[in-house]
C-alpha cells in the first residue's frame, strides 16, 4: 500500500458502511460513532499538520465552535439541525480563517503556533464557560425531539451512518487535496517554507486555506458530537481532550496519510477500551485516566519508534512478506 487510491477509499467506504449492519449492539454502535467523530476531527488536524506541517495544539477551538454553533443555532434561534449543520461548519471555517490569518500574519511557526492555538482554545473555553448566551458553566442542552427531520434518529445506526458518510467524505477530500496542486504546495510548505516561498508559492495563502479546511472538518466533528450527545459544556466542547485526540490519532495512525487518522482513531479508542476493561477487572474498580496514560505513552513511542505511525509499519512489513513468498 504505497498510498491511497480511489479504489482503496471505495473498499474502506464499503467496509465502513457495512459495520453498523454487522455490529448492531448499542455499545458497538456508540463506539463506531464516537470513533468516526474522532476520525473526522483528526482528519482536520491531519490536513493542517500532516500535510502542511503546522502543528496545532488547539483544535478544540474548532471542535467546540462547531458543537456550540450546532447546539445554539437550534436552541437559541430555533433552526432545523439539517440547516444548522452547514452553517455551523461554515462558522467553524470562519474561526479557523481568523485564527489562521492572525497567527500566520504574525509569522508564528512551530512551537509558537502550537502555543497560540492552545491559547485561542482556552480563551474560547473560558468565554463559553462564563457567558450566559452559551449556557455558562451549566452547559447547553438540545431538547430531545426524535424524528429524522430533526436529526435525532430512533435507530442509532442512522446517526452512525451519517457520521461514517462524513468520514468517507473526509477521506475523499484529503485524497483529492493530496493529489492537487494545492496539496503539493502544502507539502512544500511543510518540508521547507522558505524554499517554497522562494519558488513563488504564496505560503501565507496556502496555510490559510489549509487551516480553514482543517477547521471545517473538525467543526463538522463537533456538530455531529453535539447531535449525538445532545449536551455540551465548555470542558467537552473546548477542553484539551479533543485537541489531544485530534493530534494523537494521526500520529499513531500515520501523519500525512489519507487513512492515518482513521486507523489511528480506531486503534487508540480500541486500546483505550481494552485498557479500561483490563484495569477494571484487575483492580476491581475503574481507575480514572489509565487509558490516557496509555495514550501518552503511545504518543512518545510513536514519535520514537514509528514516525510514520501504523500506516508506516504496514509499508515496512509489506515488502518483507513479498520477499518471503
Amino acid at each position, binding site marked *: 500500500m504505497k498510498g491511497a487510491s480511489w479504489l482503496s477509499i471505495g473498499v474502506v467506504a464499503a467496509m465502513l458502511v457495512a459495520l453498523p449492519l454487522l455490529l448492531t449492539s448499542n455499545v458497538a454502535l456508540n463506539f463506531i460513532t464516537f470513533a468516526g467523530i474522532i476520525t473526522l476531527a483528526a482528519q482536520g488536524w491531519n490536513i493542517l499538520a500532516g500535510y502542511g506541517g503546522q502543528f496545532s495544539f488547539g483544535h478544540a477551538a474548532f471542535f467546540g465552535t462547531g458543537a456550540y454553533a450546532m447546539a445554539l443555532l437550534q436552541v437559541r434561534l430555533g433552526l432545523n439541525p439539517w440547516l444548522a449543520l452547514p452553517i455551523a461548519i461554515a462558522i467553524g471555517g470562519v474561526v479557523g480563517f481568523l485564527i489562521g490569518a492572525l497567527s500566520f500574519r*504574525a509569522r508564528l511557526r512551530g512551537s509558537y503556533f502550537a502555543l497560540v492555538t492552545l491559547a485561542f482554545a482556552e480563551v474560547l473555553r473560558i468565554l463559553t464557560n462564563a457567558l450566559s448566551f452559551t449556557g455558562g458553566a451549566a452547559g447547553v442542552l438540545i431538547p430531545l425531539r426524535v424524528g429524522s427531520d430533526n436529526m435525532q434518529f430512533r435507530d442509532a445506526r442512522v446517526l452512525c451512518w451519517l457520521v461514517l458518510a462524513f468520514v468517507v467524505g473526509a477521506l475523499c477530500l484529503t485524497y483529492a487535496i493530496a493529489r492537487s496542486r494545492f496539496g503539493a504546495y502544502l507539502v512544500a510548505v511543510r518540508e521547507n517554507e522558505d524554499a517554497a516561498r522562494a519558488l513563488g508559492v504564496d505560503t501565507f495563502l496556502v496555510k490559510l486555506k489549509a487551516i480553514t479546511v482543517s477547521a471545517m472538518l473538525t467543526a463538522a466533528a463537533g456538530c455531529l458530537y453535539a447531535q449525538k450527545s445532545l449536551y455540551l459544556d465548555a470542558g467537552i466542547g473546548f477542553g484539551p481532550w479533543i485537541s489531544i485526540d485530534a493530534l494523537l490519532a494521526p500520529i499513531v495512525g500515520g501523519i500525512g496519510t489519507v487513512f492515518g487518522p482513521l486507523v489511528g482513531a480506531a486503534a487508540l479508542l480500541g486500546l483505550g477500551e481494552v485498557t479500561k476493561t483490563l484495569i477494571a477487572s484487575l483492580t476491581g474498580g475503574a481507575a480514572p485516566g489509565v487509558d490516557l496514560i496509555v495514550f501518552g505513552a503511545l504518543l512518545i513511542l510513536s514519535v520514537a519508534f514509528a514516525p510514520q505511525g501504523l500506516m508506516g509499519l504496514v509499508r515496512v512489513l509489506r515488502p518483507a512478506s513479498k520477499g518471503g513468498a
Partner: protein
Amino acid sequence: MLKPDIIIAAVANGLLTGAVYALIALGLTLVYGVLHIINFAHGAILTAAMFAVFVCHQVFRIDPYLAVFVLTPLFFGLGYVLQRYVIDPASHGNDSNILLVTLGLSIVIENALLATFRSDTRSIDVPYGFSVLEVGPLLLSVPKVIAFVTSFAVAVLLGLLLVKTDTGKAIRAVAKEKAGSALVGISVEHIYAVTFGIGAACLAIAACLLMPTYLVNPRSGDAFVLVAFTIVVLGGMGSIGGALAGGLIIGIVESLSGLFLGESLGQIGIFLIFILVLLVKPTGFSGARV
C-alpha cells in the same frame, strides 16, 4: 467605586504570587534558552512536585520548607533522567518531535497522578498557613512573602551559577554554539540534561513554596503551564531577567483582572496578553538569550 487601597492590596498580592510564577517560568525559560525547545511537560512536573510535597507532609510529616531540601535534588535527578534517557532519544533531535514527546510525558504524568490520587483537590495544613504580616496598610500572607523572597534568591543563585561556575559556563556555551561546545570537549547531552534538571529543580522549589497556600489536583499544572509560557514569551524566551519581570507583571494582571472581571472571566486576561504578545512582538520585551 473601588477604593484605592483595595487596588493596592490586589497589586501587592499579585506581586507576591507573580514571584512564584516567575520561579516556575525561570525553569521553562532556561530550558528554552539552552535546548531551544518548549517543555510542554513543565506544568505536569510542577503538579507532580506539588503532590510530592503533599505526600511528604501527610505521610512523613515533613514541613514543606524542609521538604525543599529533599525534593530539589530529587527533581533535579528526575529531570536529568527524563531529558537524557526519554526526551532526547525519543525525539531524534527534531523540534516538533520534542514538543510531542513532552506533550506525551505531560499526559502520562498527569493521568498517573489522577489514577493514584483521584481527582480530589488536596491541600496541606501548616500552622503558619494563615499568618499575616502587617506592612503599613497592607496585610500580607507570610507564606507568600517567604515565597516572594525565596523566588528572588533562587533567581539570583541561578544567575550566579550561570556566570561563575564551570557548569554554568558550559550551559551558556551550549546555548550559544552547540557544535563549537562539543568540539572543545563539552558533553552536549550531559549539559542538556543538567539544564532540564535545573528546570525541574526550580519546579520542586516552587511547589514547596506554593503548597502552604495553594490547593493541588492532578490538573493544577494546566493552569500554571500557560501562565508560565505567557511569562516566558512576555519576558523574551531564554531571558532570566525577563522571566522575573514577566512573572511580576502577570501576577499583577491576574490579580487585577480577577478583581475587575470576577472569578470565572479573570483568567482570560493572561491568555489575551499571551496571544497579543505572540501576535505583535514574539521576541518579548527583552529578546536576550541566557
